[in-house]
């Protein structure tokens, strides 16, 4: 059972942390994962993209995906590559607080107002984890608890104060999907 996703956005939205959390959660759960990153040079505002492929034993994947079954769109800027790789009818999970879902064609588009949800969960900086919680619940590769554990592992000591908020965001994102 194989899953692939390209997460696209701009620097500062936590794209890389989202992707690594997903890949690590899968790994800890005994699955194989491949994670690749492509970032611009700037600290904020430049392109940020990551791809995660998950599979059982024998994962074969290219570091630059020729196609993907899913994309998570955190921002409309720099999203052309990821959307260009989405298979017809593939899943486009869109952060509708920022990106316009209506602009995406030929995909199963699911809009998640991640910023609003994050604020409501008192996790204003964790929109990315809202999206991740939603994605994981849609695709059922790893559960929110596993994502939470992986996130805990990845968050550096000087950001430890954000762990609780990130967990809330993951739950809120998952909850959005379940409620829909």
């Amino acid at each position, binding site marked *: 059972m194989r899953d692939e996703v390209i997460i696209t956005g701009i620097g500062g939205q936590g794209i890389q942390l989202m992707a690594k959390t997903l*890949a690590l959660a899968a790994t800890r*759960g*005994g699955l194989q994962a*491949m*994670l*690749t*990153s492509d970032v611009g040079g700037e600290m904020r505002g430049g392109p940020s993209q990551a791809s995660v492929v998950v599979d059982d034993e024998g994962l074969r994947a290219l*570091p*630059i995906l020729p196609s993907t079954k899913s994309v998570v769109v955190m921002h409309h800027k720099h999203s052309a590559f990821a959307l260009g790789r989405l298979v017809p009818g593939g899943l486009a999970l869109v952060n509708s607080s920022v990106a316009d879902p209506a602009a995406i064609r030929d995909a199963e588009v699911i809009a998640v107002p991640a910023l609003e949800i994050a604020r409501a969960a008192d996790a204003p900086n964790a929109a990315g984890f809202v999206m991740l919680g939603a994605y994981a619940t849609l695709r059922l590769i790893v559960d929110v608890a596993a994502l939470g554990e992986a996130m805990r592992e990845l968050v550096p000591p000087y950001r430890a104060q954000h762990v609780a908020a990130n967990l809330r965001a993951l739950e809120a994102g998952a909850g959005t999907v379940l409620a829909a």
Partner: protein
Amino acid sequence: MTAATARQLHDGCAAITESAIAAGCRFFAGYPISPFTGLLENMSRRLPEAGGHCLNAESEIEAVNMALGASAAGARAATGSCGQGLALMQEAIAELALNELPLVIFNMARNQQDYFQATRGGGWGDYRTLTLAPKDVPEAVEHTQLLFHLADRYRAPVMLYGDPLIAQTHVSVDVAARDFGPLPAKDWALDGSSGGTGHSRQIWTWAMGKATEPGPGPDGHWRAVAAKFDEIAGTEARSETYRADDAETLVVAFGSAALFVEHVVDELRADGHRVGLFRPVTLWPFPGDDLAAATRNASRVLVFELNAGQMLDDVRQFTHDRGAVRFIGGVSIHASGLSFGPLLDVGPIRERILEAAA
């Protein structure tokens, strides 16, 4: 779920670090330069934990010479850089070869443009550098341990040709120690103990020995070293083929490029094209005999590499029918200058193969 705890999510630099430590590497020196820096960072954190030493040297020149010293003292040592930094290490690589000192060199290259540098070398004298080119992180892990073994076995500097995708892609990987068989003791290594005995050890590229025990001198020594590399050329060439047995069109590619070509081969086969891949695993010694055999029945031999045509020279030399060789690669660089450009992608590769096979 027994594999769950053993398997880690590592990028190539972290995985190579763990693999090197598992192989007994206890000395590393390097200088930060993309995309090698991750290897230096990982070694810096992990080697001391394993009882080893990692030095952030003042330049690549010092890094390789520190590693040379550690090797001369009998430790399993390594260094690395990308092609730009390896350019500074060329003299020392020759020195290692002519001193018959083992060293593993990690070329975390920015692209495939360092093929000539790796296989022809830029140092002085008659030496060759055994070079392995993994196609992905799991293979890089395996090659790392094999290289420490081969370096000790042949008493020579050896190289892993990596790239940014291998350096920076994370995969779930096990890094277990692998056993490649017994090796002779390093009785040539310096520890001071033969001082004052009249037979004190000497490591010198000119191998003239001591006044009381003359050595073979440069003529005898350099001929012996050259002969050793001839031996390695005869025994250590490695290659792989993928769906090549009945291929009309054989694509030749190494490293990450080969990984992409494999995928394209599958796509084209599904469309009915008889296409396959020949992948040199050692860049030197180039698996010429294997290539000659693999190209016997191919009407087209397409060389795909991300440079202006370097492995192309070796392919031309050994292909069964030279006239069948065409170059479908090219220089393709990421906007940052630090990684591969748009040519390393399934779409463009597929197009080029189809165009050449038409």
